[in-house]
């Protein structure tokens, strides 16, 4: 049996035995992300920590799947009711595309501003985010996951925005985020730089006639992981202060998020949104539900 043909066959059979034994073929909606590493939806529909956008990619897919998520968020403030609803798709844990609709109920303030009681300001936000480098959990412990994002915002009440002094009814933010879970401390840290013209995220339009430039703002989040399912944290978000008639403050919040199931995460927060449209001390409760696959 010392024939070349048989040697070749033997070599081939060995080569076959050594090829990778693939695990179960993964479904397209692979749901393979570790719990909570997709973040929770922000009021702008991107994935992050509630108020601040992170570099995470929405949905539970890993690098060869597609992930989906949807959210509804209610913010109850002394003088306003704010709602955000949206959907996001994550592609190969690389690209995130999201859409969110914000409805901002002015309640009694609507009367004071001459808009009519309970006038609701609306805004659509179309966003895309691209993961450039790194991984939130794995790889070099000092290299965060870094993503760049664009958020195109279209205020649906542009005449109101212009009436309060905004230059435009729509605008585009650019974000650059870095996120890392420091496993040795169970702490997740995020830092985001945002270039924006938006007044109150765009609900009061973009820029002003006298100052129509993008401003650099900062968003920071720190979160402590209590368990696989529970995390508590704090966020800060600086904001521009463009409008002459109404001061705009920086935001901060304290939040707790819990993954009730692998697909449903609820987030509750205490938020301080400062002064909005001349009504100060808008501090209140934030409640959000996110489903993700």
């Amino acid at each position, binding site marked *: 049996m010392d024939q070349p043909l048989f040697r070749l066959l033997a070599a081939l059979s060995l080569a076959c035995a050594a090829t990778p034994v693939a695990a179960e073929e993964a479904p397209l909606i692979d749901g393979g992300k570790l719990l909570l590493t997709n973040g929770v939806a922000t009021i702008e529909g991107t994935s992050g920590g509630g108020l601040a956008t992170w570099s995470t990619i929405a949905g539970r897919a890993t690098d060869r*799947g597609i992930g989906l998520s949807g959210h509804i968020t209610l913010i109850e403030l002394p003088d306003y009711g704010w709602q955000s609803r949206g959907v996001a798709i994550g592609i190969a844990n690389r690209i995130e595309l999201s859409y969110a609709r914000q409805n901002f109920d002015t309640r009694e303030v609507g009367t004071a501003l001459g808009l009519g009681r309970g006038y609701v300001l609306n805004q659509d936000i179309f966003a895309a985010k691209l993961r450039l480098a790194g991984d939130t959990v794995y790889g070099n412990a000092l290299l965060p996951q870094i993503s760049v994002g664009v958020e195109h915002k279209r205020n649906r009440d542009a005449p109101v925005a212009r009436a309060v002094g905004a230059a435009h009814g729509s605008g585009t933010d650019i974000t650059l985020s870095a996120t890392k879970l420091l496993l040795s401390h169970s702490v997740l840290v995020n830092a985001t730089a945002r270039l924006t013209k938006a007044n109150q995220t765009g609900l009061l339009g973009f820029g002003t006639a006298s100052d129509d430039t993008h401003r650099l703002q900062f968003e920071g989040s720190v979160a402590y992981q209590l368990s696989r399912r529970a995390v508590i944290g704090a966020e800060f978000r600086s904001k521009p202060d463009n409008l002459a008639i109404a001061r705009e403050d920086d935001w901060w919040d304290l939040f707790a998020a819990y993954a009730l199931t692998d697909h449903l995460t609820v987030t509750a927060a205490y938020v301080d949104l400062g002064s909005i449209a001349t009504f100060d001390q808008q501090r209140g409760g934030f409640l959000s539900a996110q489903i993700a696959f």
Partner: protein
Amino acid sequence: MFLLAAALLMQPAAEPPVDWDKEFGVEEKVRDPATGELPVDPYVQSNRNAGATPFAGTAMATAFGGQDGIRRIAHRTVELSEADPRIAEIFKAHDMVRLKRTLFEQFCHILNAGCDYSGRDMASSHKDMGVRMRDLNALVENLQAAMREEGIGFAAQNRFLGKLAPMSGDVVTR
């Protein structure tokens, strides 16, 4: 009748079964009678193969219940993974007797519980396995379950995972 007899006559005589492994010169691996492990190709042994610098001090070893606790966690992680439909196929094709020993040694060494690691480095032990990110997450979940069953606090679990997470680049190959 004649045709049937002819057909029967034309049947080839029964031959003894061919040992194809022998014909093709495939060496059959035999488990070591003492350890129950299959032999592996020679490699240089070193604690560096464990892929992480061990924790300083004894706090982590204690938090993990010493060598006994660590052994249970390593073995349980392998057992859960063998039974996990997401990744069972990858484990089936390999020597789980050896993996239970070497994975224990690696965990024990990194947790500074008094072991040397005698296995291969992470890149060569996983190079032909086709491990994906999804598979790594599945294994991490199984390790978390094993640690949870042993009652390891979550912060200590994460500290340990923090030593393993940077190895992902050597393990995930596609």
